[in-house]
């Protein structure tokens, strides 16, 4: 019984601290999230950026690099490819 109380209390305190720091210091860019959701999300690393999330951060500075994504050129990813092309080809 004591174990349950101890763990619950400490987990709650840690959770509250994390939420507080997250709300204060974490800045989520909406466009970045959108680009990241459009990428395939397999983290294959073919583009050279190791993770899809990493690539989406680089895409902000170099928009045309999305062409490096090999899985994006598959037929089932056509919608995402066209949408990315529309956002980034400007």
């Amino acid at each position, binding site marked *: 019984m004591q174990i349950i109380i101890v763990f619950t209390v*400490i987990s709650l305190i840690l959770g509250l601290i994390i939420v507080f*720091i*997250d709300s204060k*210091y974490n800045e989520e860019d909406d466009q970045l999230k959108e680009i990241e959701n459009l990428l395939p999300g397999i983290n294959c690393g073919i583009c050279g950026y*190791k993770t899809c999330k990493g690539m989406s951060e680089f895409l902000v500075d170099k928009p045309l690099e999305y062409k490096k994504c090999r899985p994006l050129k598959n037929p089932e990813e056509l919608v995402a490819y066209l949408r990315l092309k529309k956002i980034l080809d400007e």
Partner: protein
Amino acid sequence: MGLINLFLASILTQNIVLTRFLGVCPFVGTSDKERNAVGMGLAVMLVVTISSIITYFIHYYVLVPTNTEHLRTVMFILIISSCVQIIEILIKKFFKDLYSALGIYLPLITSNCAVLGIVLLNINASYTFVEVLTFSIGSSLGFTLVIYIFSTIREKLEKNDIIKPLEEFPIALIIAGIMALLFSKYGA
């Protein structure tokens, strides 16, 4: 005198990576570039120091009075992951280029057995608070030192001709083994 011995021992003779063989994954994984290696080492130092202070207090003022010491592994993992999460958010805000250099390796510090190892070793050896600080800072400094040396060797090695089967990763492991042999001489 005991503190200085402890400090030097945790850096050299009982090095966390090359003698105790904890934390080899980030050691080999982030040492391909010097900058990443130093960043990783400093992040580990920060995480280890903060975690060992918090776990010391949690262990002696919460776990021991309520007779739940046997669950310290679970509790320490909880504390270490929270610390890493908070440090990741702060690094993302204040040191943007370090954050993108470390990438996936920063959350991986959570599963770095060096961090959990140092924290549990503090408890097993029943160190006092000052000894806990000395040991943690010393061990993480040893980790940073070794990862920095290794990254310089690897960077230099990239420019040399190595036979194809041994390129990149296997030669790194061989070099790490040679380093471990050299460091074992400190204890002899």
